[in-house]
């Protein structure tokens, strides 16, 4: 187990290295003088020079990268040029609503996606299967921000049932919070549910063809028992993987859906920063999400090997 852990952990190093180089490099993607672009046309030469100095743009690139990296590792992501506040602080403020939305959407997706996938697998090739699969294809074809706009139009504007904008944390009461987050949650959860349904179906069909399922049937086990106790249990690993792997995309998706519903989260922060070309903030957001994505995948890997010891012995070097 320790060897396996070490091996997995070592595999993270090159990925994290590329992630940090790309994030750091963003400032070099900027055409012309980065400091001048960030400050806009009204900035004076002294201001630009001061910013260059504080960003360390006058140092050799290796020195810059090293100081940026060591600072980032200790949680210092620089200072927002526009807001004049540490990026870490700004990020923490914006993170709450985004995580809330992402978790709620994930739960909804699991509640819908897993049973739908099981149903489709059990009725493989029938109308039910096709309905679920077409539904899933639709779910994947409608981008979440667009679904959000459509839901807003239908339930918010035409029917007037739900608020179309804003955010209430859970502390303001679960009912109220749910009301505000209902539409964004559905908008974000739909695509996720579609992905989970597809994966569940595939994984279930895979287990159905296994010999132990034949054995279960041969010994007269009830369908229900063999379905949940044998098939679902074995199929749960790829499903968990899908859920883990999609967390990063889900957070990014939450950021987009947030802007539809004016929820003050990471999405709003990104949009505002893009408008102000506050690249330091963007670097912070991107780095944080990518790194948490890599780490979550690592944890899912570990969880996987705990749940299924076979992985440790056979899947270690793939």
């Amino acid at each position: 187990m320790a060897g396996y852990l070490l091996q997995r952990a070592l595999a993270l190093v090159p990925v994290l290295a590329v992630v940090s180089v790309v994030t750091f490099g963003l400032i070099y993607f900027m055409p012309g003088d980065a400091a001048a672009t960030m400050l806009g046309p009204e900035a004076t030469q002294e201001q630009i020079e001061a910013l260059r100095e504080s960003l360390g743009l006058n140092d050799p690139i290796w020195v810059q990268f090293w100081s940026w990296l060591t600072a980032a590792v200790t949680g210092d992501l620089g200072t927002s040029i526009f807001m004049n506040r540490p990026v870490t602080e700004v990020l923490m403020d914006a993170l709450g609503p985004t995580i809330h939305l992402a978790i709620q959407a994930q739960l909804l997706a699991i509640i819908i996606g897993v049973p739908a996938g099981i149903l489709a697998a059990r009725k493989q090739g029938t109308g039910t299967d096709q309905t679920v699969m077409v539904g899933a294809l639709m779910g994947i074809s409608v981008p979440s921000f667009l679904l959000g706009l459509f839901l807003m139009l239908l339930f918010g504007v035409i029917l007037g049932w739900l608020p179309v904008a804003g955010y209430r944390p859970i502390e303001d009461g679960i009912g109220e919070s749910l009301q505000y987050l209902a539409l964004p949650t559905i908008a974000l959860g739909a695509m996720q549910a579609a992905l989970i349904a597809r994966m569940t179906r595939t994984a279930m069909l895979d287990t159905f063809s296994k010999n132990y399922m034949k054995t279960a049937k041969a010994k007269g086990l009830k369908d229900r028992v063999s379905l949940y106790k044998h098939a679902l249990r074995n199929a749960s690993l790829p499903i968990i993987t899908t859920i883990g792997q999609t967390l990063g995309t889900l957070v990014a998706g939450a950021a987009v859906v947030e802007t539809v519903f004016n929820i003050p989260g990471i999405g709003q922060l990104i949009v505002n920063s893009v408008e102000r070309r506050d690249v330091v903030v963007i670097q912070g957001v991107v780095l944080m999400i990518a790194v948490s994505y890599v780490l979550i995948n690592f944890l899912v890997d570990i969880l996987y090997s705990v749940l299924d010891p076979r992985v440790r012995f056979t899947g270690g070097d793939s």
Partner: protein
Amino acid sequence: MSTENDPRAGAAGASGPAGKDDITVGSLNRFNKTRSRRSKFLRRFAAHKLAITGGTILTFVALVAIFGPMLTGSPTAVDAANRLQGPSADHWFGTDNYGRDVLARVVEGARVSLLVGAITALLTSIFGLAIGLYAAYNRVADAILMRISDGLMAFPGILLAIAIMAALGQHSTNVVIALTIVFTPYVARIVRSSALVVKEQTFIEALHAQGASRSRIIWINMAPNVLSPMIVQATFVFADSIITEAALSFLGAGVPPPAPSWGNMLLDGKTVIYNAWWMTLFPGLFIMATILAINLLGDGLRDLLDPTYKGKGATGRKKRKAAKKAAEAAAAQREKEAVGGTQPVVPAQATRAAEFETTSRRPEGQ
């Protein structure tokens, strides 16, 4: 269907003129077979209802994008007297908050979206093909290129695109650059995994023995054999780029106004959603229809370019089911393998990729 969509035709074409002294490919034989194969492909395509539906919708949108602007008025002509008018005989899709014709803007937006999607799909195919082939061919290149693509794939696509746009600045060309950086790794991975299989084939060994040059083997002998999975993946990149471009423009980080794109039209529409539903509905419907069409077409192409697919009919259906089942089982296996190694992949693509990889590993016509 042009020949580009039939990799076998492409393969024969590529080895046709150069193949006279090529004892391993059997180019003459293949050349004769090409025509019958192509018509078989077309027949199977015609029998695939979903692919046909997708192709029809996409063709319609493409025709709208090409010829529409000649029929509609200017997409940027401001008419202050007719702001926020609902759909009418004059303005079928209504007018927006500047009095601009929404139909004209949707039509022009189709042009922008399809163009961005198509150019991105083309560029990612070219880069993905080159990177994937060299990675499959050379171990050192493989280690470096695949670690870089792992790293790029650790960023959620939309987020990386936003970040690049924030750095580069708002411009249509920059959208294409950003999307190409985001999606190339996905194509490269698919090409690499198919190429690794092709590389082990006897005919490549024979070419080595004959002393064929590296670039000859890579570009003339290996490339044609990885085209079909690449084309399918390119189809999905096409769809994903359209979605991502729309999202970018909606966030104000994509195609800059006043040029219309479906995404920035939705952004305009959102601010007046209480007064003008048509500004949200029509561009939205066009995005939805286009993406659905491309996904259907992609799924269809995947089935059709898959050698295990046997068409329909009483026995054919059974066979197909069996093949599908096997493919799905293998897909699940791939998923597990993907977990065994740390390959941070966006699941939509991973699943598609896995589904395809397992069925497309047999190189065509060898």
